[in-house]
């Protein structure tokens, strides 16, 4: 967090060097990499089978056999957290993908066309932002049925105006540049200019926003699953594990500890990565969060 930009905006060649000297970026990359690796490993190996219920081993405290203990069905919590990571990451990635895939073209279109299209996009943004995101996500998942797919859609919809706004603002600042004028003079159309010149110039702010939305997506998925509206059992998810832990706090507080840590570490890693990227890619860019 406190790693201040020490060097001016790097050119392409020095990006890696600048990134590696940014403490925030390195810490964030390390943590995010660790979580991603954990999710990948869970496809081929987990310490125990997460579908295996061993009633005799219910709610064991952490030990050499079960590092993080076991849950109320005797399942190994470490294994559940590993599989849960896969699930959280998948939901957040697709939700960010929906937001970027629809929001960025919309924002670029509005910036290129201006006038009515721009005004309509801004009003659409106002409309979506008027709906409290969490409440609407609850509404969508409850109405269309709980489950990971609907959770992804519910979270993704609210990413659309975020990316549309960031892309529009970025594109609007690039359009008046001289090289855009040169490209137009050379007879290039607006679509081609957007693809060849606008997008590469706003890629860095989109990347930074992407990591922020990724972290928010992880939190939102955990919240929905905690309410029973996200990922459904028997598929383990961090939010659901916290829900199951709540009624057993008196007897087994460790049940709530580890899924919570998993969420915090993941979100922290992504936020550090986002901060670091922002500093490295554009030191002049303001930190808004």
């Amino acid at each position, binding site marked *: 967090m406190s790693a201040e930009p020490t060097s001016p905006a790097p050119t392409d060649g020095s990006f890696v060097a600048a990134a590696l000297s940014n403490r925030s970026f390195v810490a964030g990359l390390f943590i995010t990499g660790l979580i991603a690796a954990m999710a990948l490993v869970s496809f081929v190996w987990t310490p125990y089978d997460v579908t295996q219920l061993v009633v005799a081993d219910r709610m064991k405290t952490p030990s050499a056999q079960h590092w993080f203990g076991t849950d109320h069905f005797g399942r190994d919590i470490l294994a559940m957290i590993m599989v849960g990571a896969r699930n959280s990451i998948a939901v957040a990635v697709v939700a960010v993908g929906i937001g970027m895939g629809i929001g960025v073209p919309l924002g670029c279109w509005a910036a290129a066309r201006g006038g009515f299209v721009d005004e309509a996009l801004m009003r659409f943004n106002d409309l979506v932002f008027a709906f409290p995101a969490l409440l609407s996500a609850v509404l969508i998942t409850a*109405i269309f049925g709980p489950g990971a797919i609907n959770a992804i859609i519910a979270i993704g919809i609210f990413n659309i105006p975020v990316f549309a706004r960031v892309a529009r603002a970025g594109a609007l600042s690039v359009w008046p540049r001289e090289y855009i004028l040169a490209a137009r003079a050379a007879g290039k159309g607006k679509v081609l200019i957007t693809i060849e010149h606008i997008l590469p110039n706003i890629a860095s702010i989109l990347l930074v926003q992407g990591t922020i939305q990724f972290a928010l997506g992880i939190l939102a998925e955990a919240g929905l699953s905690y*309410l029973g509206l996200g990922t459904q059992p028997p598929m383990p998810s961090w939010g659901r594990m916290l829900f199951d832990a709540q009624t057993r706090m008196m007897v087994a507080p460790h049940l709530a500890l580890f899924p919570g840590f998993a969420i915090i570490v993941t979100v922290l890693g992504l936020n550090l990565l986002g901060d670091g990227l922002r500093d490295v890619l554009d030191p002049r860019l303001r*930190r808004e969060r």
Partner: protein
Amino acid sequence: MIPFLARRLLTGLATLLLASVVVFAVLEILPGDPALLMLGMNASPEALATLREQLGLNDPVMVRYVSWILGLLTGDFGRSFTYSSPVIDLIAERAVVSLPLAVISLLLSTAIAIPVGIFAAARRGKAADTLSMGAAQVGVAVPNFWFALILVYIFAVWLQLVPAGGFPGWKAGLWPGLKALILPSVALALPQAAILARVTRSAMLEVLGEDYIRTARAKGMPRRHVLWRHALRNAMIPVLTILGLQFAFLLAGTIIIENVFYLPGLGRLVFQAITQRDLIVVEGVVMLLVASVIFVNIVVDICYALVDPRLRSNA
């Protein structure tokens, strides 16, 4: 200032109208017959037909939309069939829990975050800055419902200082009521405070780099005076933006926290209404919350204009 206000109000109203169409349309396309839900699976076809007629379910969509909107405008939100009481009464009953919860959380988060943010900015790069911003970075990552569980374990289960959940009602007295809201508001406030502290710090740093701050210091103005009078006022815009967003979030975002603490607030009302398909309640609460978000945004914009006269003309 007046044209600015008028334009802002007008766009706000247009958004609200559009939102009402969306809410109505979404709930309209839902499967499920309200009459069947109210009378149960064993109801006779005649009874169902009569009730549909009474509820106006046979009217064309446009007629029902208009009568719903007119009802909202005159304070008639319809009747809930699961609680068999007017929706407006249910909302009033629940708002006395949710509103104080939101206000206390916001006050708590502001009281922590703004001093911490200013303090960190004033000691930029020193240990105090690194430490407080490190804590804020972690705070942002903490899901409030997990934090709530930990608070319940420490203060309700272990130390037994406050109740673990439930709400005695304000009739039981001010203190028992407030006591039930302490843990929920702390759980809501801390992650919010972490975000706000970071915003305050970066806004202050931005302003502290300006020429007029150096001029003020060069004139011999005391450091504290420069920090609180000159810098803070100019750093208020981003801080206000986040405050407005957070208040809107708190009004509706208490839905999970109210479930953790079994608080009979608006979030829990709407959550239960959704699962029971009590759509008239869902419509009413959602519209009310959307209206409050729009209202808060207008208030924030007016605050901008008050803080910074330059924004009055072109916002």
